[in-house]
């Protein structure tokens, strides 16, 4: 299993001189399974560049959407396979309490928000509301678990052999807690099922503790909360994800250093900030 980061910025694409090291594209991570199956985690603006590499791809492409906020879907219509006749795309994502994933994507992909509609795509599009239990894609077992973020939102757990990856780009596990995250029993910890014992956890680390105090309920985590969540869930490694759009590269590095001070880890397992082009090969 190999993961490649194509976008790790949160909320708003943020290109510019201040973000060249970590990148300005919004959420998108490619996961290549050992059998060649391609998973795409979210379709933020990072999916545009990824799409160039998938033109003519032989086999289905599975796009796993965590939720419908624009920074996670806005790249969808600039994903080259979406306009490629014969491409087979499977979209997975949370349904709302009343509407299917397809209905909700169609709402974004329609005037006045966008000039074209889902039906204009020549590709074979398949929409799937995520199941409540695990399911198979290619050589991996996938599980979607609801997490704390405004509106229906899930995180994904991908297991292939002994390797496992959890992707929770938007999550506020500290919401409403009177105690520290690490004091919460696992069955009451949002996101636990997705992240428990994984090899690598990609997790929301958008805010500082001070910023979080002013943004409670916005659906994001402080770096401190991300570290506490990763430790509570027993994740082996943490990748800090969903960098704040107002944060420059130097700021990201300061936050990463803070995370590493909270959780030094061993043998290079301390938290690391995601950056565009980051590759992780999981045995």
């Amino acid at each position, binding site marked *: 299993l190999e993961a490649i980061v194509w976008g790790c910025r949160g909320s708003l694409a943020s290109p510019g001189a201040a973000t060249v090291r970590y990148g300005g594209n919004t959420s998108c991570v490619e996961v290549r399974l050992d059998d060649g199956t391609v998973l795409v985690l979210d379709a933020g603006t990072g999916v545009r560049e990824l799409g160039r590499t998938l033109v003519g791809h032989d086999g289905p492409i599975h796009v796993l959407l965590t939720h419908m906020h624009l920074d996670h879907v806005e790249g969808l219509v600039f994903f080259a396979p979406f306009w490629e006749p014969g491409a087979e795309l499977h979209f997975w994502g949370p349904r709302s*309490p*009343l509407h299917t994933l397809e209905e909700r994507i169609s709402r974004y992909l329609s005037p006045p928000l966008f000039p074209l509609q889902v039906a204009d795509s020549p590709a074979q599009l398949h929409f799937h509301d995520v199941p409540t239990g695990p399911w198979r894609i290619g050589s991996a077992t996938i599980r979607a*678990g*609801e997490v704390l973020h405004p509106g229906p939102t899930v995180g994904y757990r991908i297991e292939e052999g002994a390797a496992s990856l959890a992707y929770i780009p938007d999550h506020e596990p500290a919401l*409403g807690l*009177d105690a520290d995250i690490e004091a919460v029993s*696992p069955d*009451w910890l949002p996101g636990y099922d997705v992240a428990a*014992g994984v090899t690598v956890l990609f997790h929301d680390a958008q805010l500082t503790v001070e910023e979080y105090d002013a943004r409670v309920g916005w659906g994001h985590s402080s770096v401190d909360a991300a570290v506490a969540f990763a430790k509570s869930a027993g994740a082996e490694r943490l990748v800090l994800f969903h960098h704040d759009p107002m944060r420059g590269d130097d700021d990201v590095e300061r936050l990463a250093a803070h995370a590493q001070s909270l959780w030094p880890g061993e043998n290079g397992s301390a938290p690391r900030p995601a950056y565009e082009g980051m590759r992780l090969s999981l045995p």
Partner: protein
Amino acid sequence: VVERPRQKSIVLILSRELSSKLATAAFVTDEHGELVYFNEAAEELLGRPFSETAALAPDEWGDLFSVQSLEGTPVPFEEMPAGIARAERRPAHGELCITGGDGVRHRIAVTALPLFAHADELVGILSVFWPSPRG
């Protein structure tokens, strides 16, 4: 294979967090009717802190409190608002008497709301209750 506890539904987790912030007594059960949480205001009526209570199936609630009709006859779970909300998947309201762990009897009004994560997915029941104005 590592056996891990399963995380509860987000709707149930949020219901507990909401209940923990309410001044009104609140009582949360899972989809099976197992009592998974009650708040501080409920502790006053039940005569026992939640921290001293394990999760209780409906037939074990008697360990914590007993429920009677206004006439004094025992009320089974199925006939309580929470039981009706669970079985019929609709809100239910009623007046009851409860006797908590401290032996004090209270006449209460209860409203139970089924918690649906999706239209076809019942994950629990949220019951709020307060001393009956007629009590």
